[in-house]
């Protein structure tokens, strides 16, 4: 007998050790997420995947599924709360989508559309953030960094390089690079690293590839992220 959980009334199976997110992904149920990528250790920081499990708000990407759990996912209240989270991510950084190379392939943008975000709602912080163009093949634009630490995890756990890390605290948290100068160009980072491919936004961009796929033909231009994800395509990455 396999164990099951119920998400919005649908009973789905799960295996021991799976999180709510794992079970949902296997069953092709979309739970909005940004810091989660099934290839890497769950992190639990963006809080977009918040669901109510037996009435309690939990992060789906880190909470182990438990026999008989009743989960609310697609509810008006949760989507309102998730929209607020996405709005927070927009205003704390500097996201000018019309000028961004990632537009159309960007998960932050796609999730904002999917949650019907019509405005940033909050006042922009306009933080001064550093752009690092020192690497021959890759741009690092911290203006678009949402601190999801996917690049940190990929570089540490897959590339075995530890190129990235976080420093600072609170709103001062920032992505730092592992080199004496702090610049990407002086680190061991290579364009072939897994970490070069995992950024959900346009914070890590590969040089000389700009607009090779034209706007209008990009991953989320025709299908919303909820559909792309449940059709089994891992979105938002450079092809």
């Amino acid at each position, binding site marked *: 007998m396999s164990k099951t959980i119920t998400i919005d009334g649908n009973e789905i199976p799960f295996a021991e050790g799976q999180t709510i997110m794992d079970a949902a992904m296997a069953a092709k149920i979309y739970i909005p997420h940004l810091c989660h990528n099934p290839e890497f250790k*769950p992190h*639990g*920081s*963006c*809080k*977009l995947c*918040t669901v109510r499990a037996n009435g309690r*708000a939990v*992060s789906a990407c*880190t909470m*182990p599924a438990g026999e008989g759990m009743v989960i609310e996912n697609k509810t008006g209240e949760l989507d309102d*709360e998730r929209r*607020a*989270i996405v709005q*927070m*991510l927009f*205003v*704390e950084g500097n996201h000018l989508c019309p000028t961004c190379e990632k537009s159309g392939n960007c998960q932050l943008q796609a999730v904002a559309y999917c949650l019907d975000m019509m405005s940033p709602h*909050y*006042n922009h*912080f306009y933080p001064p953030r550093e752009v690092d163009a020192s690497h021959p093949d890759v741009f690092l634009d911290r203006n678009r960094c*949402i*601190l999801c630490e996917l690049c940190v995890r990929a570089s540490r756990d897959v590339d075995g390089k*530890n*190129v*990235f*890390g*976080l*420093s*600072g*605290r*609170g*709103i*001062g*948290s*920032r992505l*730092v*690079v*592992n*080199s*004496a*100068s702090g610049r990407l160009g002086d680190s061991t980072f290579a364009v072939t690293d897994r970490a070069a491919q995992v950024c959900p936004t346009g914070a890590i961009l590969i040089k000389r590839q700009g607009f090779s796929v034209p706007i209008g033909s990009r991953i989320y231009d025709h299908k919303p992220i909820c559909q792309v994800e449940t059709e089994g395509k891992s979105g938002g990455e450079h092809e």
Partner: protein
Amino acid sequence: MEPCEFPHIEEQLGPILGRHGGDATRLLQILREVQDCFHFIPPEAVSCLASHLNLSRAEVEGVAGFYSFLSLTPRGEYRVLFSDNITDNMLGKAELMQYFCNKLWVEPGKVSEDNLVSVDSTSCTGMCDQGPAALVNGWPLTSLDNNRLDLVAELIRIRKPVAEWPEMLFEVRDNIRRPGMLLGEAFEPGAGIRATLARGAEATLKEVDASNLRGRGGAGFKTASKWSFCHAAIAEEEGSMICDVGGHPERFIVCNADEGEPGTFKDRVLLSSHADLVFEGMTVGARVVGARKGFLYLRGEYRYLLKPLEAVLERRRAAGLLGENILGEAGFVFDIEIHLGAGAYICGEESALIESLEGKRGRPRNRPPFPVTRGYLGRPTVVDNVETFACAARIAEKGGAWFAAMGTAQSTGTKILSISGDCARPGIYEYPFGVTVEEILRDCGTEDAHAVQVSGPSGTLVSWQEFGRRIAFEDLPTAGAFMVFHRQREMFAAAHNFAHFFAHESCGFCTPCRVGTQLQKRIMDKIAGGHGTPADLEELKQLGHILGTMSHCGLGHTAANPVLDTLKKFPGTFERKLKALSFEPAFDLDGALATARSITGRDDEWAHLL
């Protein structure tokens, strides 16, 4: 390559690294020493530590950038940090800090041109009963006034080493006003351990269970349950049990002395005058759960207690109360090590505390697993508050029934309160649980109390209409803070101060807390500046909801409490500050010109947009 300012860093750091045995879990302790030595963490030191500790440079920079008392850019040779709790402010902190800055020709937040001094604010230093307080290079200055600051400024000007400053500047009083069974009754070191050995570990756990002791750090979890979960847990690695040198499953006992909640200072007094009780409780806990190693995580603000506490540990070792074969019991091995924090409220949260003990950024972990199953280095770990261990020592000595006879049914024993603010006799009061706010106010000498912030900003704001309520888990749970406000106080100012506190202390890991506490702070600033509208109050409620439900840990969950409580219980204090309009842009045109004004040195009518 940029020119290297510290070409001899290897030799300079050698002794520090040597003292800590090149152990990466000691990184925070090492960084504290580097900060003391250089008044910041030079980039060369980051590289050097990374290579010696086998960490990436980014990891070391990550830790150095997380803690308020560490700095990646140079600070003054003398770093003076004024405690910014609301109680310090009620005693004139802002004016004193300005006075001091003027005297030394330095701007708050900046370093003086000769690199001699920097002055800034810091979160509550735990001296609320003898404020306004400050730290100079980490050492506490109390009861500040203009005269004392004149002296401090003079000592700095003549570059007298802090170690040679007059002792009276650093005097910290206990101010125990109402002792009870913890603070008042004599305790013979060893009595609790002896009784534990006599009745056995299992029977002692039963006594703790019968006492119904609940954690004193705020959450009120039943201590016996925590201890028995930990005792039952075994850490495994690749299928085999992780053992200590004695061949037993490895477990740890951690005493949480981070005491960062503004307005709380009772652990400080327990540690300065009743440390034996605390260490004894840890040792009893170690016997019950089967731990050989314990840590005391002492907040950086209390570094002045480090030496005296180490002396107590040394004395206990000499008396056979710590170390090998404790009190002659073969195989009973336990010792305690003290780790210092470095200015981060979040490190009071138990899983962030464990991260910090491991030498990392103080980021709360995902749970499950809980520390009792996977804590320090992934081993089962008990984290308890200072006062909880003190209670446990008494229970071990005198039994569970004796303890359970005090207090109320759900809240047994006594609770130590740290009282500050508008009262005649601020200090430490120990009451049996169940005491009413009214009785406490009478005892500490208040005339026209209007509100009390119980358990600090993360707790509950109690208005004068509720003074009949009781201190107890079933009514007003508290970690100990009790800040009194009289009728003339503007309650908005307290909520505003607390909003700044949370924004400053958010660890930044999760979106709702990192951004939400900032947004809350900015709206409170807008209202304080006279630009608030009714729409902003709605926004505050909405933010409170997001913080309370979506955040990763208790910091975010409670960060809107003071604002929401004040909105509910003292709506007038907000409304008096509002503009009549329903909308007012947050962007302050005139404010945006401030930088230009300061560059051009102008402040005339035409330099303003009004």
